[in-house]
């Protein structure tokens, strides 16, 4: 019985870690293929939150209830909170430094947002 449980646990961890690696590669391809800073940020966040999250959950499944799991949960929470914060800060700094989204249809709205941002200061 415990042998079966062991195999089930390894299969779940295999699936989670492979899925995490897949999202990391997708994110790296996106960082290379996207046309400007803002879309690249979007691609990078996929790997930062989803890729690392799936991999860490896979490692939690392998570690069981130990101190290692506590460290993994700490790392997971930190990455999930600080990743979006850093992404937001970079996007805002890029907008203030004069970068504009290049894809069609969103330029007018971006200009309005920037004007609001500049008037607020």
């Amino acid at each position, binding site marked *: 019985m415990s042998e079966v449980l062991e195999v089930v646990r390894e299969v779940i961890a295999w699936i989670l870690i492979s899925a995490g690696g897949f999202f990391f590669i997708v994110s790296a391809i996106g*960082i290379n293929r996207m046309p400007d800073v803002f879309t690249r940020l979007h691609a990078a966040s996929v790997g930062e939150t989803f890729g690392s999250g799936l991999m860490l959950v896979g490692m939690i499944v392998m570690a069981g209830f130990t101190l290692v799991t506590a460290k993994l949960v700490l790392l997971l929470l930190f990455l999930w909170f600080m990743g979006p914060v850093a992404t937001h800060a970079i996007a805002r700094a890029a907008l203030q430094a004069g970068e504009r989204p290049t894809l069609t249809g969103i330029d007018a709205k971006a200009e309005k947002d920037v004007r609001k941002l500049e008037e607020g200061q």
Partner: protein
Amino acid sequence: MMLDRGEAMFVAGIAAILVALALMVVRALRGPTVFDRLVTANAIGVAAIMLVALYGFFIGRPEFLDIGILYALLNSVGTFAVLKFWRYGSLGHAGEEEGDPQ
């Protein structure tokens, strides 16, 4: 050398992250603006954390996670330091509250 089932999954994860790292380094070298490089540096930092964690599990020493946590802290602090330096030209600048009269 034969890997057992439990070790092979970490090798697969490490291989995926190494491929992703190679692609990210290309963008970090090509990126036209400083923000492109910063986005990529952040992504490379997260990939390095996962690499350290997976390698620690692979060789059976999960204590490597402490190094991963330290890298995560340094990574976010470093990103904000570069952003602040880019905007104000010095790290000692007091900054400003949003909406403050200039």
